[in-house]
Every structure is written in structure tokens, then in C-alpha cells.
């Protein structure tokens, strides 16, 4: 979305002349699309992953038979979490704002969609658009004051904000006399598990594509400069305040979208969407996946979303030779243990493995294949 704005329009007047002649081509939409994967490997990996995800429903049909719809539904959730993880990563991994307030936008996005489609009888996509718009406005409202607070103080203050939002949403529910906000007027096709999966897949692909370019544009470079050294960035003419605020807004919009999709997925919005647990889940995703990395956001969401599913699939009691383990009572602990081990062994996240593998490969090539 924002990538279109930054890479599509004419560069702003204050842009210094680029030393790269090819940047004119790169700055246009078509050029960006053409040059998207810069390497042969890129041409393989991205369409390969897309093809795999497009074929996943068929694979699931083979694997699970008539319960494949149910299983696919659970995988769809991971796609929704990828959006939220990407949003948290923009804010924390790129712009270095340790904000734990994203679950506030998550809940607001879901409730806005429910309110517009249920009570105001608006079409679904209008609901999504308004959810994102309201999140953007809230992003400015939260982001402005947040610029004054830093570090762990910001983290706990925004955690309090999530608590506050959750309480207010819960109050909305109780004054309206309901347990949670059910979405009764969803479009027919979104109630089908396969259609919902493909819709979420399409949205996630578009968002990741857009973020890939946004993060390589002027905006993304400004965020990274602020992260690496705020004073140096300011000295080089980066509007620190403006770009930090922009990070809050982009993050809020993406989280709002994610929350609206989550409400669609669950066909209800609950106040627990804005709970400290939820916001900490987002943070866990990017820390385990890797701060400041798109692949990290995806890997983290998969770890947090898929691992409990896998652990739930284990037979109970699990029989290892003479030992019988009642695994069903241990899943939380096992999940915690795996998370702990992953953090101890890969403190920079899973995405650091990709970089490490790439370096090792390059060294291997330089040495002519000799170990």
C-alpha cells in the first residue's frame, strides 16, 4: 500500500540525485515488479513458496480427508498472525520502538469491522477499510505521546494501554449486553474455509510484497538509520519525529487489518483480542523470528502459531519405550521449553540462520568448494 506511494510517485523534491541510473526504472511500479527478485534464487524461492501455499489446500485434502477444512482453518490463522508480526516488526525491528501496544489496534480493528458490518449494515470491504483508517488515527494518537517515552518505560506504558483498550472494549460489550461481538453478516464466500484461506493468502502476499519495497525505500532506510543511531540519522537530515510517527501509523494500520481478518476468521470479536497476552504473543513472534527481517516475521508467526498445533497432534499418552508421558497436560510447558531453547541458541532469531547459511555458502564458493 505504502510502497505504491513511495516507489510509484515521483521522488520528493528534496531527494538528492541518485548515483544509480537504473533507479529511474526501479522507481516505477512495473520496474519494481520486473526487478522484484534480484537473483536467480529469488526467482525460484518466491514463486516456489507461493505455489506451495496455493497447493496447500489440495495437500490437506489428501492428508486429512473431510476434516481438511477444519485443519486449513487453523493454518489460516497463521497467515493472519504474519500480518500482525510484520506490523510489530516494522515498529520494533525497524524503527526501534519497543511498543507493546499493538494488541490495542488488533482489538479495535476487529470491533470496528463488527460494528460496521453488523450495526451499520455496511459492506464487508468498507468495514475493513474503516478498521484500517481508525487504526491509523489511533496510531497517530498513541504514537505522538509515545515519542516522549523510551525503552522499557514505553514497553510497560503501552502494555497498560492494551489493558485499557481491552477494558473499554469489554465495557462496550457489557453495556450492549453481549458476551462478544459476533459478526453475523459476513459475505457468504468468507465463511468457506478454502475461500478464506485464499483470501488471507492473497492479502498476506500483497502486504509482504508492499512491505518488502517500503522497507527498501526512503522510508525503510530512514527507519533503519534511526534504529542504528538516532543522532546520526538526525544529523543526516532524517526527520526523526516524522518517521517514528509514520512507523506507528503503518504498524497500526497493518495490525488493524490483521485484527479485522482475525474477527472474520473467528466470526466474532472479543475483548481478549486486546489483552497483554495477545500483544506479548506478537512480540514473541518477532523476537523468535528475528528483529528487522521480513522472513523473521513469517518464521516467528509460524513458530508461535503452528507449534501448539503440532504439539496438539501428538498422541496422548506419548509412549517412548518404557516411558509414558501424558503429553496433553504438558503442551504449554513443552512450548515454553522449545521457545526458551530457541532463544538461548538463536538470540538473534531464526532469520539469523538464513544469513549465517548464506555467509557459509559464500565462503564455500570462495574457497572453491574446499571445506
Amino acid at each position, binding site marked *: 500500500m505504502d510502497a505504491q506511494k513511495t516507489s510509484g510517485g515521483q521522488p520528493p523534491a528534496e531527494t538528492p540525485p541518485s548515483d544509480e541510473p537504473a533507479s529511474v526504472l526501479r522507481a516505477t511500479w512495473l520496474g519494481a515488479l520486473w526487478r522484484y527478485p534480484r537473483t536467480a534464487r529469488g526467482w525460484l524461492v518466491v514463486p516456489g513458496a507461493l505455489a506451495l501455499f496455493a497447493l496447500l489446500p489440495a495437500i490437506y485434502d489428501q492428508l486429512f480427508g473431510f476434516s481438511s477444512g477444519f485443519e486449513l482453518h487453523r493454518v489460516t490463522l497463521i497467515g493472519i498472525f504474519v500480518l500482525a508480526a510484520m506490523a510489530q516488526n516494522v515498529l520494533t525491528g525497524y524503527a526501534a520502538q519497543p511498543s507493546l501496544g499493538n494488541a490495542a489496534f488488533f482489538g479495535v480493528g476487529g470491533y470496528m469491522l463488527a460494528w460496521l458490518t453488523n450495526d451499520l449494515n455496511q459492506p464487508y470491504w468498507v468495514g475493513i477499510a474503516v478498521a484500517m483508517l481508525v487504526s491509523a488515527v489511533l496510531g497517530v494518537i498513541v504514537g505522538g505521546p509515545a515519542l516522549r517515552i523510551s525503552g522499557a518505560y514505553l514497553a*510497560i506504558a503501552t502494555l497498560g494501554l492494551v489493558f485499557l483498550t481491552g477494558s473499554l472494549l469489554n465495557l462496550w460489550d457489557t453495556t450492549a449486553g453481549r458476551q462478544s461481538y459476533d459478526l453475523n453478516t459476513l459475505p457468504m464466500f468468507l465463511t468457506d474455509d478454502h475461500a478464506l484461506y485464499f483470501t488471507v493468502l492473497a492479502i498476506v502476499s500483497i502486504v509482504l510484497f508492499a512491505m518488502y519495497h517500503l522497507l527498501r525505500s526512503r522510508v525503510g532506510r530512514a527507519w533503519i538509520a534511526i534504529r542504528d543511531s538516532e543522532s546520526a540519522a538526525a544529523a543526516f537530515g532524517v526527520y526523526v519525529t516524522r518517521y517514528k510517527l509514520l512507523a506507528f501509523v503503518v504498524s497500526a494500520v497493518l495490525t488493524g487489518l490483521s485484527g479485522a481478518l482475525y474477527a472474520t476468521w473467528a466470526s466474532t470479536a472479543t475483548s481478549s483480542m486486546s489483552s497483554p497476552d495477545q500483544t506479548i504473543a506478537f512480540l514473541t513472534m518477532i523476537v523468535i523470528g528475528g528483529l528487522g527481517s521480513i522472513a523473521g516475521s513469517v518464521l516467528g508467526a509460524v513458530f508461535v502459531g503452528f507449534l501448539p498445533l503440532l504439539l496438539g497432534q501428538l498422541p496422548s499418552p506419548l509412549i517412548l519405550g518404557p516411558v509414558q508421558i501424558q503429553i496433553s497436560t504438558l503442551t504449554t510447558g513443552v512450548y515454553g521449553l522449545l521457545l526458551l531453547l530457541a532463544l538461548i541458541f538463536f538470540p538473534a532469531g531464526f532469520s539469523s540462520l538464513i544469513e549465517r547459511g548464506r555467509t557459509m555458502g559464500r565462503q564455500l564458493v570462495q574457497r572453491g568448494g574446499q571445506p
Partner: protein
Amino acid sequence: MLAFLQVTLAGLVTGSLYGLLALGIVLVYRTTGVLNFAYGTIAAICACFMYILLTGPQLNFWLALVITLLFALLLGMILERGFARPVLEAPVFTKAIATLALALVLQTIAQQIWPQLASPVHFPTPFEGHAAHIGGIFFSLADATVLIVTILLMVTLNFFLTRTKLGIAMRATADGLSAARLMGVPVGRIFLLVWSLSALIAALAGVLLASEQTIIDIQFMDPVLLLAFVGAVLGGLDSLPGALVGGLLIGLADNLLALVLAGRSIGALNVSDPAIREAVIFGGFILVLLLRPQGLLGRAVLRRV
């Protein structure tokens, strides 16, 4: 007026408990840079351990307390060596998330060892049922214990940190890790000390809260922890007196707001709802942080370029 005094007393008592927890959080954060989200679980485990001692082998309360405190010291050391040391060099966020994972693991282990604590149980104490009426104010023995223990702990800790060599070494480590190391402070042993001290405070807070509530389970600390964190940040994350002040303020605000808002409503909105009270507390907290970003008693962050 009497109601006001009574509520202020209750606020001081819950505030002391928040303050004690905030103290332990700040202690570990200042020295090792770990935002310890597992702190509530540590406190709960110590209280549960004491419950087992009281109901299983039917130990005397004070003997059980001493054993529990020793257990807490040991637990703190194990956590430092087994958990905090491997992630010492990791970024602050990784450490914070790791403590969450640690909390999950500890809770699962405790649930496996003591399945009876998965549901609420009665925590027997000699304080229960004893109370005094002083000028119309109801003053229970458990309340008095909380206040006395908090004051004693603050005095002892203050003496330890300012007058003993070990305490000064601890503060030196918190102020500058490499400088302390160069001065010959055994930094590793200081970390060990900090974690066991913080676990000891957790155990005290856990047992005190258990004797206040008289009903515990393995997760009884979870709702308290967030408010303790808010107290710690409100007072300033690098200040020990600040932690206590922050905790006290949160406790007082919680109880006084409950009194002020009780039975009132604005239009159709019932403001005596606990959600409104929490909303007001968090709103005030954020407001204070906007005015003083480093907390009430914290030092302003020095930014070196």
C-alpha cells in the same frame, strides 16, 4: 472519614505487596537487564511450596517459612545459572520473552509436581481470624504483618546496599558492569546474589499475599504481576525506593478509587465496575509517564553519542 482511613490502610497493605514485587523486579532489571515476567510465577511457586510443607508433613508455620525462604534462595541460584547466565548477552527483548517462556515452563513443572494446586486451596496461617479494632478501624494481624515485614525489609535492604561491602559491590555492578569487573568485583557471584535475593523477596511477597487472600492456586500471582510492573515503572525502573513508592501509589489508587467510584454511575455506565477502575489507573499511569518519562524517582536517561 472512618471508611476513608480503613480504605487507606487497605491501600497501604496491597501497595506494600505491589511494592515488594516491584522491588524484586527492579533489583534484577538494574543489575542484569532482565525484565522478569516470570517473577509472579516464582512468587507463586514459593507460596505453593510452603503450602505443601504446611499440609503435607504438617510442619510448624515458622519452620516452614524458613525452609521456604531457603528454597527461594536455591531457586534463585538455579534460575541464575540455568536461565539468566545463558541469555546474559542477548538483547533486552530476547531476555524479556525468555522470562515469559520460563514462566510457562515453571508453571507446568509445578502443576505436574503438585496437581492439587491447579484449583484454589486454603492457605493455613496462624494470622487468620486475629484482628483488632482500633478506634473503629478493622486491623487484621495479616495486614499488620505485611506492613511490618515491608518496613523491616526496606530497612535491612537499605543497610545492606549502603553499608556492607557486598551491597556496595552490587550497586557498582548495576551502575557499570565492565567498570565493576575491572575493579575486581566478582560479577558472576553478584548476579547469583541478586537473583537469589530477588527470589527471596518474591517468596516473602508470595507468602504474605497468600496469608492476606487465604486462598491460593498455582496462578494466583498472575493478576498482581502486571500492577507490580506498573508500580516499578511508575517509580522509575532504576530506583529501589521508587519501586516501593510506585507500588504503594498503585495500591492506594486501586483502593481509594474503589471507595470513590462505589455505587456511582454516569448515565447508563456503571463506574463501580473494576474495569473502569483499572482503566483510570492505567490512564493516570500513562499521564504520569508523559510528564516524567523516567518515572517518579528515576534518573533521566543520559544519551551518549
